[in-house]
């Protein structure tokens, strides 16, 4: 059941992202978005390991995390359409959505910006002594921001219930981890703060799920933060229109062989969780969900200017 549900979610993310790329190509949405094709197993592995009361934050590349956490596809997609039904009422766009009611504490356009934010949520949990864990998703590139260092030190000092989950997809925009990191093993950075640091296969749902669950449990028990490095690959471009001159097509083809969605489908068949026909059925259902979301977005009213004008301050 776990695998089946995970597959549903991974496929939803994949199709969602593919549809976003299409919508951009067709000029039906504007602005910017960063798709996570190839990284679906991380999103779903982490989200599945979390409990309802837990928090999750993400980055500019956050659709997968948000969908895995339970976002309604149409409400997420609506941000790209600039429609009022979006999670940010159409004001935020892909990089600025939040839904605390489902434990989703936001995508974030500032690389590294979510790191202290997620930690503040964990500080709240620690002060209130709730059993909430905060899962902070970010990229290999973000781990070079100073605030990563400052924050991990503070979280470790105060033993806050926060998991730093870095999706090492090999690149920060055009910059490979070899060019961006003096020590390309990000998990090694954990030692500086006396916290556990592990590197796992981010393309394997079960590996991600098990690892995150273990450290989430530890964090809940008061053992403090951990740094989990999920090795994966961004199969898509950085953002729309990226000609990907910084890597070869051969490298990409190799990476496609490790496509987490295909890997998952193979596992489902091998383990006889689903038949080929059932997989096809999931695919069709998922396509229908996405198609419906697009229609919902197109029919939705645009972001409200009047409401936005009055939104600057909270009461």
């Amino acid at each position, binding site marked *: 059941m776990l695998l089946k549900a995970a597959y549903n979610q991974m496929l939803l993310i994949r199709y969602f992202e593919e549809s976003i790329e299409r919508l951009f190509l067709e000029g039906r949405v504007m602005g910017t978005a960063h798709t996570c094709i190839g990284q679906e197993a991380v999103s779903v592995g982490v989200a599945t390991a979390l409990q309802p009361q837990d*928090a999750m934050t993400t980055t500019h590349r956050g659709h997968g995390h948000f969908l895995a956490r339970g976002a309604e596809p149409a409400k997420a997609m609506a941000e790209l359409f600039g429609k009022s039904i979006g999670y*940010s*009422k159409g*004001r*935020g766009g892909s990089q*600025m*959505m*939040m839904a*605390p009611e489902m434990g989703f*504490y*936001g995508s*974030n*356009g*500032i690389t590294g*910006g979510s*790191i*202290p*934010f*997620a*930690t*503040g*949520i*964990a*500080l*709240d*949990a620690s*002060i*209130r002594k709730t059993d909430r864990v905060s899962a902070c998703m970010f990229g290999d590139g973000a781990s070079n921001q*100073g*605030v990563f260092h*400052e*924050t991990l*030190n*503070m979280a470790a*000092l105060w033993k806050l219930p926060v998991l730093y989950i870095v999706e090492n997809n090999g690149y920060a925009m055009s910059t490979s981890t070899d060019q961006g990191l003096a020590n390309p093993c990000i998990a090694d950075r954990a030692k500086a703060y006396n916290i556990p640091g592990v590197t796992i296969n981010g393309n394997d749902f079960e590996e991600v799920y098990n690892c995150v669950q273990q450290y989430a449990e530890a964090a809940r028990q008061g053992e403090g933060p951990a740094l989990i490095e999920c090795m994966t690959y961004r199969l898509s471009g950085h953002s729309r229109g990226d000609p990907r001159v910084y890597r070869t097509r051969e490298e990409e083809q190799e990476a496609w062989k490790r496509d987490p969605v295909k890997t998952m489908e193979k596992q489902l068949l091998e383990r006889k969780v689903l038949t080929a026909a059932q997989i096809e059925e999931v695919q069709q259902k998922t396509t229908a969900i996405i198609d419906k979301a697009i229609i919902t977005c197109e029919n939705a009213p645009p972001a409200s200017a009047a409401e*936005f004008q009055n*939104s*600057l*301050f*909270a*009461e």
Partner: protein
Amino acid sequence: MRNITFTQIIRETLEAELTRDETIFLMGEDIGVYGGPFGASRGLLEKFGSERIRDTPISEQAITGIAIGAAVAGQRPIIEIMFMDFITLAVDQMVNMAAKLHPIYGQNCPLVLRTTPGAGRGYGATHSQSLERIFCGIPGIKIAAPSNARDGSALLQTAIRDNNPVLFLEHKLLYPMRFEVDDKLPEPTPFGYAKITREGEDLTIIAWSYMSVLALQAAAKLSNDDIEAEVIDLRTLAPLDIDTIIESVKSTGRVMIIEEGPLTGGFAGEIAAQITEQAFEYLDYPVKRLAGDDLPIPSAKSLELNCIPSVATITKAASDLALAD
């Protein structure tokens, strides 16, 4: 009534608020046993413990970012950035996160950032700046800049109870100053209401934070020369009480704004622009700004106080303006 320092009333206010609401906590560098560089939180650690009076490493960016996260999650953090010069390290968090939380993400962010602007102690160019200008142009951040103990307490209470990020300025020269105040703490004062601290008909002098102290002293001197200045202490810069300003300007026709920070690109320019927009036909003379030199603050005592407005320069400029015909 009693006579206490600004430091003392800030400390008492923090104590009262921490007692009132247990979602409030303090976070910053050396605020615990050290009590902060000026002693404003001295004694609070003993009373509230290290969970609520949280000493941090030297990590201004993370302090601010973590506080923002905690605020959105339901706490009411008060962070202290030791010198205002160091908020430069918190600008990203304040501008790109705190200021965007309500209008874009739809979230409350009840955060107070306390910090100490101002020159006058010979601390040099990176410990003396008045950088409120950085945030005056960022929609979504409120700014309070009290000039006396009563307002310090009343505005700090308001800041803490506000559901938005508030930058709260405690000028370092105010801390040791003594003020007559009620035995019990004042009620919170709503933001956006300037105070006319002296009435007069010859000209209007506008100031905030420590410059309001000097403005009043200058006004007393001016009065000896039969020049009656109306002094407006802004108390908050955002929101700005432009109505009180305009009303005063309409009656005096002459107005001077005092700012400690450098002249160019400061908040006095904004106020001057608004006054001109709204009271042009009432102005006998163009709005005058008296501000710091367009230079960093030097450490030498002999240079430092010459770079920023003083009672003498305020008096002189105000007198020139009042007597011009």
